[in-house]
């Protein structure tokens, strides 16, 4: 025991420890997670903004809040938000998918060509074909990103062109227009069930499934884990590659579904359908608070983000904003949203630092 005496610190510190521990506990008690509060605040803010915007537009143009127009906004937003669900998963894993507009066009085109060829076929078949093609496109991307380890931006930029080119190839550069589609096909998007448009129903079902998936399944949480800290995820035995493959495949499948819905809704399939639409989807996600740095994003957020974007797209022409401004406005929305997200994050970090009281 001769060395115990040499460092008498242990006993000294033990005495002071109790008082300090008590102080530490009381200091710790009032702190609530600041970031959680801000996340809540963000959604409320978004909602408030949507209400204000709608009210403002309504004052300028009374035909805005008519049943017809609201329905129009809702059906348009439905497709956007379906895609945003997939994009959110991709962005949560720190990725991005620029190919979804092309995937949408390709699967929409193939589905349209099928129903043109076989007008008697069940529209469910068209849906299946569209989703199947989307899944295949997504799986290719998933493979490139997870197995070959190509940067998502490069992989999706390259495949975007491949898919787009294939769309033109498949159609021979021609359109499939309304009169070539059977009514049963067009009814996919225009039909109603219990008085609610199919598109809205499908979108709601997808929100619910996605909500359950991200919040109540193991795999769903692993998506967030991979985005939050890829190294830890690997150490705790999560198969990162499979998660990445999964999110891109899901994204592809949703794009395929959206493709069929799109073609059915607008009753036309073209080579350049939904060209550049991926940007709106990304805008909806960042507006909804999905962090580009990965690891966070909520279904409720992206739904609100999509609604806001849908309202904007619908409202701008109604208050006589030239359609040529829309590009610019969308870009500014993305930029401002990511900058604000970044600044909020900085504020939170600074708060954490202040709490250290050094």
């Amino acid at each position, binding site marked *: 025991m001769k060395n115990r005496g040499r460092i008498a610190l242990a006993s000294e510190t033990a005495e002071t420890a109790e008082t300090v521990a008590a102080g530490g506990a009381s200091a710790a008690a009032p702190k609530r997670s600041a970031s959680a509060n801000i996340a809540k605040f963000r959604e409320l803010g978004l909602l408030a903004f949507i209400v204000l915007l709608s009210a403002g537009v309504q004052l300028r143009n009374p035909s805005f809040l008519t049943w017809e127009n609201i329905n129009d906004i809702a059906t348009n937003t439905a497709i956007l938000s379906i895609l945003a669900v997939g994009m959110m998963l991709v962005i949560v894993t720190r990725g*991005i998918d620029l190919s979804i507009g092309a995937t949408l066009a390709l699967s929409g085109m193939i589905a349209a060509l099928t129903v043109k060829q076989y007008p008697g076929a069940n529209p469910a078949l068209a849906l299946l074909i569209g989703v199947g093609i989307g899944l295949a496109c997504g799986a290719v991307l998933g493979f*490139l990103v997870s197995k*070959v*380890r*190509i*940067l998502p*931006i*490069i*992989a999706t*930029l*390259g*495949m*975007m*062109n*491949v898919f*787009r*080119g*294939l769309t*033109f*190839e498949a159609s021979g*550069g021609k359109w499939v227009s309304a009169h070539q589609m059977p009514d049963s096909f067009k009814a996919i998007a225009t039909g109603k069930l219990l008085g609610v448009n199919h598109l809205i129903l499908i979108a709601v079902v997808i929100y619910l499934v996605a909500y359950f998936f991200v919040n109540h399944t193991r795999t769903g949480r692993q998506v967030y884990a991979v985005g939050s800290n890829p190294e830890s995820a690997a150490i705790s035995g999560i198969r990162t590659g499979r998660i990445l493959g999964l999110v891109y495949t899901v994204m592809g499948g949703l794009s395929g579904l959206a493709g069929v819905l799109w073609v059915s809704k607008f009753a036309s399939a073209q*080579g350049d359908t939904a060209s550049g639409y991926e*940007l709106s989807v*990304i805008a909806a996600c*960042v507006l909804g608070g999905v962090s*580009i*740095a990965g690891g966070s994003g909520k279904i409720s957020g992206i739904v609100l983000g999509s609604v806001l974007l849908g309202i904007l797209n619908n409202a701008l022409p109604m208050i006589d904003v*030239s359609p*040529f*401004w*829309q*590009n*610019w*406005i*969308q*870009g*500014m929305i*993305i*930029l401002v949203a*990511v*900058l604000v997200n*970044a600044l909020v*994050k*900085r504020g939170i970090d600074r708060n954490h630092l202040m709490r250290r009281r050094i």
Partner: protein
Amino acid sequence: MEPRVIADRREFSLRGFFLQWEWMLVVLFVAINVMNVNLSEFYWDFDNLRDATMGFLDKAFIVLPMVFIIILGDIDISVGSIVALSSVIMADLYNHGVPMPLAMAICLAVGALCGYINGLLIVKFKELSAVIVTLSTMIIYRGVAYILLKDQAAGKFPEWFGFLGWDYVAGVPFILIVFAVFAVAFGYLLHRTTFGRRVYAMGSNPTASRFSGVRTDRIKIVVFTLAGLMAAVAALFLTSRMGSTRPNIAAGYELDVIAMVVLGGVSTAGGKGRMAGAILAVFLIGYLRYGLGLVNVSAQTMLVIIGLLLIFAVMIPKLRLGRAIRR
């Protein structure tokens, strides 16, 4: 400390010399030419080849700074939009009575300013990636072009403006001469100067570079500004060749440019790649397009080919064979 001799001369290795990415490109280049000659009898004609070269060189100007950007480990997908915006502003100013030379100067200034904004945002918001910043400015810049010109075309440039894209000096296309000058300048900047060395350092290890006194922020801003400036140069030549401009010109340029740079052996992980490879890739893709165009391969098929080429170019180094190749 015991004295120890450390060599400062490199041993020449023949194997190392030939195991360079550029040799692979040379082989590919020859292969494409052989294929093209077999595809079409019109291919191997000096005048045709020369004129074809003039057709694809405009985007080659953007390849030069894009090499720097990708070596930095960043990416810029707004370059196509910068081409459109600077071209549209030039046309708009000229049509409102601004003298052409001044309009051209403003075109260059607009390009540089767009690039500077990109660089500034990326440097000030380090938590955002260059992908998302240039993605949003891509939409914004083209958006401004649409606001200015709506859906119209603008043109009626003075006759001499066509010289840029269409004329020859002593039988050599003017655009080729200008490109050669820029290519040499950018190659020199990258491989011989302190600036280039620092760019490589930042691409390989940004933290160590900063700790070594490299002004990383400033370099990044300069590089992105150069990209904007060169996009404006490309706009000058492209507008001259087309004779008029629209807000949707140069759509998809970013893909072509990035594909050329990556095919040229520049690693998307940063820190690796050489200017010569990227320039070779410009001609490789250019002639491939031209040859396929001669046999009526559609523009859409070309899209597929370029897309696949980009994917394969990034895949090769990940394969075992590719790892041996020096870049």
